[in-house]
């Protein structure tokens, strides 16, 4: 099964389980979803529940918020995070804010899914990663599933969450293959998870960066360095416990973040590690992030702009000192 199919399966389960659940967004219906996630769902659920929208990001995200207020359980697909800036006011000033501003009256059980990330040569306006921006906003829960099981299970969990959830699906993951265990169900949307044990350094990644971070760990292993890999997966609220526990043991940490370096989520994670485990650190926390440039189109420049297994491994070796 692919990641894409895992998301589709979760949407299907959610819509079967709860008549209030529906999917809405640009081209989710007849087109089958820009990334083919919702292919076939229109036939099963019809156009009311697999609802194509016009190109009106602010309005249909806002309508998702309103529908959630009105008792529905909307899943809104914003085709890509690049376009979500057009709806950011609705997310920040309404979805994330209504509960507090109303003194606890207005619950917004809304799930917003977006494709995110670079790596497909679609250049400066279509390659953004705003993980850190969304993770900055109180009231939101922000998820970045990197595996088939999480793609499926985090969406299911999000559907039972009483507050707005942002789900980032990295474009490079849609075609990835894996097994969905029998009876797979909701997974935790509060905890990070150790994907690989190790003792010399903690590599911290999520979403589209996890696979190459694991690949870097393989490289390091070959060089005799034992790297632990933590998949952050919940970007807000961050699971400090899992991260700190690992770093306390390895005494070294490297964060891999696809965002532009300055002001990325990597900074928050690095700062928290220093706040919680300063005296356990044998070296400053390292970061491998994207170059600070609007993403150029040609492959060689794009790849040079992004964190790669090689650059991750090299940065880890520099920290470990061998």
């Amino acid at each position: 099964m692919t990641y894409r199919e895992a998301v589709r399966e979760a949407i299907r389960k959610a819509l079967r389980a709860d008549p209030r659940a529906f999917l809405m967004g640009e081209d989710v219906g007849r087109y089958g979803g820009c990334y083919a996630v919702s292919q076939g769902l229109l036939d099963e659920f019809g156009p009311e529940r697999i609802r194509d929208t016009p190109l009106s990001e602010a309005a249909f995200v806002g309508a998702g918020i309103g529908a959630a207020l009105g008792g529905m359980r909307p899943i809104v697909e914003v085709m890509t995070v690049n376009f979500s800036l057009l709806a950011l006011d609705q997310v920040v000033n309404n979805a994330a804010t209504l509960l507090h501003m109303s003194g606890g009256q207005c619950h917004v059980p809304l799930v917003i899914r977006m494709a995110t990330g670079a790596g497909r040569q679609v250049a400066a306006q279509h390659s953004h990663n705003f993980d850190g921006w969304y993770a900055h906003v109180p009231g939101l829960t922000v998820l970045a599933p990197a595996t088939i099981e999480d793609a499926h299970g985090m969406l299911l969990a999000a559907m039972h969450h009483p507050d707005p959830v942002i789900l980032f699906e990295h474009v490079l993951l849609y075609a990835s293959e894996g097994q969905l265990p029998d009876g797979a169900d909701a997974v935790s949307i509060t905890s990070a998870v150790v994907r690989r044990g190790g003792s010399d350094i903690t590599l911290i990644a999520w979403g589209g960066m996890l696979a190459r971070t694991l690949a870097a760990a393989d490289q390091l292993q070959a060089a005799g360095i034992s790297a632990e890999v933590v998949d952050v997966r919940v970007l807000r609220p961050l699971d400090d416990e899992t991260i700190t526990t690992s770093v306390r043991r390895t005494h070294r940490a490297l964060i891999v973040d696809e965002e532009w370096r300055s002001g990325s989520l990597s900074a928050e994670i690095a700062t928290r590690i220093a706040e919680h485990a300063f005296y356990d650190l044998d070296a400053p926390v390292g970061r491998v992030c994207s170059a600070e440039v609007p993403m150029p189109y040609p492959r060689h420049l794009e790849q040079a702009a992004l964190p790669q297994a090689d650059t991750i491994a090299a940065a880890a070796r520099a920290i470990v000192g061998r």
Partner: protein
Amino acid sequence: MTTVPATPATTPAVPDAAHARDLLRDMLRIRRFEERCAELYQAEKIRGFLHLYIGEEAVATGVMRALTPDDSVVATYREHGHALVRGVPARAIMAEMFGKATGCSGGRGGSMHLFDTARRFYGGNAIVGGGLPLAVGLALADRMLGRRSVTACFFGDGAVAEGTFHESLNLASLWGLPVLFCCENNLYAMGTALVRAQAQVDFTTKAAGYRIAAHAVDGMDVDQVAAASRDAVATVRAGDGPMLLEFRTYRFRAHSMFDPELYRTREEVDAWKARCPITTYEARLRAAGVIDDAAKATLEAEVGREVEDAVAFAESSPWESVDTLTRHVYSEPEPGHAT
């Protein structure tokens, strides 16, 4: 009957006396409540931004009459009047404006963010145009859940220039959703006159761009507002899709408490004040024999008591404890319910 400028000759006759008195009472409640708010702002009991609705009372009063308790309301930061005539208790509103724990938003929202979900009053939105998509979504929920409710969405003339106006009207019409778009055209967005903000000032022309039926209504005449709203709500409720009503009205006071009002003349303001929705309606009711001095005095007394009671309640209410600062950022687990 006094003549109101720009009012068509066919002003509906005062329908029934009790109804008419209710309309007058509601307008008066807004007026007196807000006059008191202005004082309390000077006294620094109310802080932040305070946007008074004085002059525009006929609009909220007339529209709310047309709604049932199952309908929903979305309003702006100039929404004390809407909340009040929707049935949110004056006490809860005033306490909110004081920032007290007993306020209708638990004191968190203040003047611009009045909420009361029990009365389906969904704010209190202070991003201009930000409420329109919410209204579309509330109506969508009603439709999908098979409820025959209407969502009334209030916004100003200034909001018409925002992209969300365009996107929301199209979406509501495309999907045939039960939204009554209520544009409170008071001719200014802060200091920007309508003609300096809109290439086309006839909003019914704009509505045609979304295949939405629209009418301009004299927003200074509560009977006309009520009649137009009744008809429009009936149409919308029948499932004929959204409608737009443009209420032509005027704000008598400054935009907020910080506004030097450099952008309009005293004469213009006075000419509109001569069309005050309350004094003109009162005169009409007097002429029709529906009220007299004694009735008016009783009304004023009742309204005054409600306002003073609200102020006393707000004054004596407790503040939220600072310990609760970060409450309501996320939902609290329901009692007996594992997270």
